[in-house]
């Protein structure tokens, strides 16, 4: 059974450690906030200018002047702070943020990431992604392992326009957990019931398999 979006988020949440400042991208990464274990204190950074992002507001708390980078209404928490976009990216560029979790369309075996543009088709812009990947101390990517037509998104070289070079450290897909090493994607864990062969077949880039590969524990 491949992991669904919430299970990918739940697995990534295990990477979040006490005391971290974390930036969560749009999509699956946003869901990670729902699975941060009890007793672990983290501060979520929203790049539009907020540290200490809280849960969605109740109906009577909704404030148009308080949104996250995905333009969703949110709340602040005790100890939150609000600042300008220049200060926000000062935090990011200055490597004050400990962990960045974001989505991707493609990742190469060298850790290059592509997630902002499909030439001739989709032009949404990079938003803060290029700044985040260029300066993050640690980047975890949440993504689907293959495209709808079955083609691999984990490649030797990215085919889509690059967002950043050699920056991804870890990848959690619907099929497995991998680490980016000098020699390629190192397989760490597989989704329950998914075989090493399944993962090998779905991975175009170099896949390193050492010893017994355990199942993901959620």
């Amino acid at each position, binding site marked *: 059974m491949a992991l669904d979006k919430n299970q990918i988020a739940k697995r990534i949440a295990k990477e979040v450690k006490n005391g971290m400042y974390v930036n969560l991208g749009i999509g699956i990464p946003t869901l990670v906030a729902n699975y941060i274990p009890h007793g672990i204190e983290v501060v979520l950074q929203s*790049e539009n200018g907020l540290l200490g992002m809280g849960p969605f507001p109740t109906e009577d708390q909704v404030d148009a002047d308080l949104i996250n980078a995905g333009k969703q209404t949110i709340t602040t928490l005790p100890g939150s702070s609000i600042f300008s976009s*220049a200060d926000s990216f000062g935090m990011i560029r200055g490597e004050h943020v400990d962990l960045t979790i974001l989505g991707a369309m493609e990742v190469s075996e060298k850790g290059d990431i592509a997630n902002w543009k499909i030439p001739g088709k989709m*032009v949404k812009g*990079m938003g803060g992604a290029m700044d985040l990947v*260029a300066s993050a101390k640690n980047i975890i990517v949440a993504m689907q392992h293959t495209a709808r037509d079955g083609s691999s998104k984990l490649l030797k070289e990215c085919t889509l326009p690059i967002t950043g070079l050699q920056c991804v450290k870890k990848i959690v897909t619907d099929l497995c957990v991998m680490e980016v090493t000098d020699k390629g994607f190192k397989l760490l864990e597989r989704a329950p019931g998914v075989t090493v062969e399944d993962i090998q077949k779905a991975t175009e880039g170099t896949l390193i398999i050492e010893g017994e590969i355990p199942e993901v524990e959620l």
Partner: protein
Amino acid sequence: MINKTVKNAQEALQGVQDGMTLMLGGFGLCGIPENSIAELLRLGVKDLTCISNNAGVDDFGIGLLLQKRQVKKMIASYVGENAEFERQLLSGELEVELIPQGTLAERVRAGGAGIPAFFTPAGYGTEVGNGKESREFNGKMYLMEEWLRADFAFVKAWKGDTAGNLIYKGTARNFNPMMATAGKITVAEVEELVPAGELDPNMIHTPGIFVQRIFQGEKYEKRIEQRTVRQA
């Protein structure tokens, strides 16, 4: 104290002409200068270069200016919320420069602070770096990025005083403080305009020196793009 007050948006936008470069504050539809955008629409000025993090949505914010083909070039970081924008871009009607969000913020800040260029790692090795000088510092590669300045900067604040001092609220702050510093003429619209002396100087986000014209806006819609709520 110098009085920066003008009557309304009409007076605040005097001198805006075809072909000008404008900055517009806001992130998504949060903290956008709604009254100034409405006045730009009424004036019908065209061939504008607009610098703003986003391009609004189809029927609100900068999206309204796009619909009326008033924008020649858009400089932004993320435009995903606007189908008309994407259409004009893919068909070649609209010129677009997409730049990383932090680079955009810093280029505007640099413009206001008199720093013509700086180095950032964002975009190195990507098409953003095409044609730009790159340099290595401490073993890491950086791109040189130049400042941005504008003929007019339009910003939105929560409170302001007649001296042009501004206080923003929540994440409606975003790009507004930097843009306020980078306009030859900066127009601030505020929800509440008070006499100089009523705002605590310790609480000011944008000092009045950066603001040339200030007015109290009206009928703020403050449209929400993604209304997300939880059960009480």
